């Protein structure tokens, strides 16, 4: 804890900016019902009202308040992305650590399956699954978890394979500890840093991926306020030179930039640490 604070004090401006933005998003998501002037899918005015005192950012195609939907969007879009990333990560990390720690034919079989999954473009495969099973949030989350766990798997496996040959793991094996004990007590504590970086990276990919699917009308379904779908619903305003529909897209980009800034900094700190050690 103390070390973290010391590191934060010496952090340059970009990652600090990133952290502030991430915190702000979380705060907005948590306090959405308090700070938003209107309800999530409440129709409060006529269609496409301009920016003003009553409706801060105007209203959308159905007469719902844009600002309120933007605030609620932080809940839906970011929330679903977090759930999906967590699932992706658990799936990839568990089978990756297992493959790395066990080695042998388990590793071979799992790695070949992952190789095949990686050779398919995720968007194309996701579209195929959505066409067959229909669009629903559960299908979406599960499909993405399977398609995106490949990268997590590779990193977890590589890290585990490096750690499992260390002397302290040998000792644990000789003591008669089981494979899960070794993964939980020896491998996991020694591989948190690369896994945290990977989590951040995966989150960005998953977040952008879900937004794109929502934008195409195949992701998060109405009337839930979601940034990707909001752009699509109000896209006709853009042909009049109105930038309101771009705001949700900007919100997506800003969060992704913030996370990338923090990740870049963590990786940089890690690599300098390794160089000194």
């Amino acid at each position, binding site marked *: 804890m103390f070390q973290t604070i010391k590191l934060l004090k010496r952090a340059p401006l970009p990652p600090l900016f990133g952290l502030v933005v991430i915190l702000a998003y979380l705060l907005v998501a948590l306090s959405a019902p308090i700070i938003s002037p209107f309800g999530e899918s409440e129709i409060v005015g006529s269609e496409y009202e301009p920016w003003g005192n009553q409706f801060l950012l105007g209203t959308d195609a159905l007469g719902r308040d844009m600002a309120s939907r933007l605030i609620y969007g932080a809940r839906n879009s970011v929330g679903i992305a977090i759930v999906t990333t967590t699932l992706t990560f658990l799936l990839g990390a568990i089978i990756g650590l297992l493959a790395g720690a066990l080695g042998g034919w388990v590793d071979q079989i799992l790695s070949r399956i992952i190789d*095949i999954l990686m*050779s*398919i*473009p995720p*968007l*194309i*495969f996701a*579209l*195929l*699954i*959505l*066409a*067959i*099973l*229909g669009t629903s949030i559960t299908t979406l989350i599960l499909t993405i978890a399977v398609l995106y766990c490949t990268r997590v798997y590779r990193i977890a496996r590589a890290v585990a394979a490096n750690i499992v040959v260390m002397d302290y793991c040998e000792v644990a094996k000789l003591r008669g500890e089981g494979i899960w004990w070794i993964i939980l007590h020896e491998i996991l504590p020694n591989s948190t840093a690369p896994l945290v970086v990977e989590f951040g990276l995966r989150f*960005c990919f998953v977040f*952008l991926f879900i*937004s*794109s699917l929502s*934008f*195409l*009308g*195949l992701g998060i379904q109405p009337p839930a306020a979601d940034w*990707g779908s909001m*752009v*699509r619903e109000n*896209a006709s305003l*853009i*042909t*009049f*030179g109105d*930038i309101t*529909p*771009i705001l949700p*897209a*900007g919100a*997506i*980009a800003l969060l*992704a*930039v913030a*996370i*990338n*800034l923090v990740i*870049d900094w963590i990786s940089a700190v890690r690599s300098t640490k390794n160089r000194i050690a």
Partner: protein
Amino acid sequence: MSRMKRHWRLLLRRRNFKVNPIIIVILQRLGLGLLTMFVVSLLIFFAVELLPGDIAQEILGQAATEETVAAFRQKLGLDKPPILRYTYWLRAALKGDLGESLASGRQVSQLISGRVANTFFLAGISAILAVPLSLFLGIITALYRDSLFDRFINVIMLTAISSPQFFIAYILIVYLAVKAGLFPSLSNIDPSMSLGEKIYYSFLPALTLTMAVVAYMMRMTRVAIIDILDSSYIEMAYLKGIKRYRVIIKHAFVNALAPIINVVALNLAYLVVGVVISEVIFGFPGLGQLLIDSVSKRDITVVQAACLIFAATYILLNLIADILSIITNPRLLYPR
């Protein structure tokens, strides 16, 4: 794998063949590519089996009578065993017959033929814009690492990587199409247009794709070049007193070629798949737009065909990237 390789090498040596190991590696990659294609075609075909219950019932809805469902099942060939259906499907697909659209009843190959050409046209324009630009930026930022210019470009590229494609697309529409009136925001090209007109109408979607792909390509190029510039033989060359431009051309460039070619091919694969969103935004009549339409209509045969084409292109470009990076690797080219 390595035992296999040794076995082959011994076999070839015994017969007094002198086969360059590079050929063996390439043949292995080709075989792996073919195997991947086969598995992917299996996945695309059998994904339909994922559906709990019956696809015919699912598509026709609960209101459909038993006879219509049975007729529909027969039309899809669902009354035959899956393995048989797969072999029929694959054989027909290889001949160019992709079945009938469930929604319109038209031949799928007829629906997509013009669109495939359009999609490759769009991806082609984007590649022509993106490749030189990203190589130039990647090389410059690597040579002038940590300069103000490098940092500026890096911040811009980080933003581009973090932005969803529709964000970039709509910003381009607002500023270049609506406010400046330079380009049309709707790219509904048709075969009667001349090449110049087609390029003019496809410019904004191509630019969107370029922005999305340049960021990755430039970053990967930069890393590849920095990797080489940091290696000990470059340091050695400098220590020998060779001039900077000679070091870059004679020592760095030759070794940078392999990773750069690899980066380009990889990103072209990404680009071909990335067209989907750009096509939808700009109403470009390509394969991606058809794919999205068919997904919402749940027109499975069209979706399968489009997925097969996209996946095949993606795998093929990745394979080319692999093989080119083997061929351009000096260590494999001149075995000791």
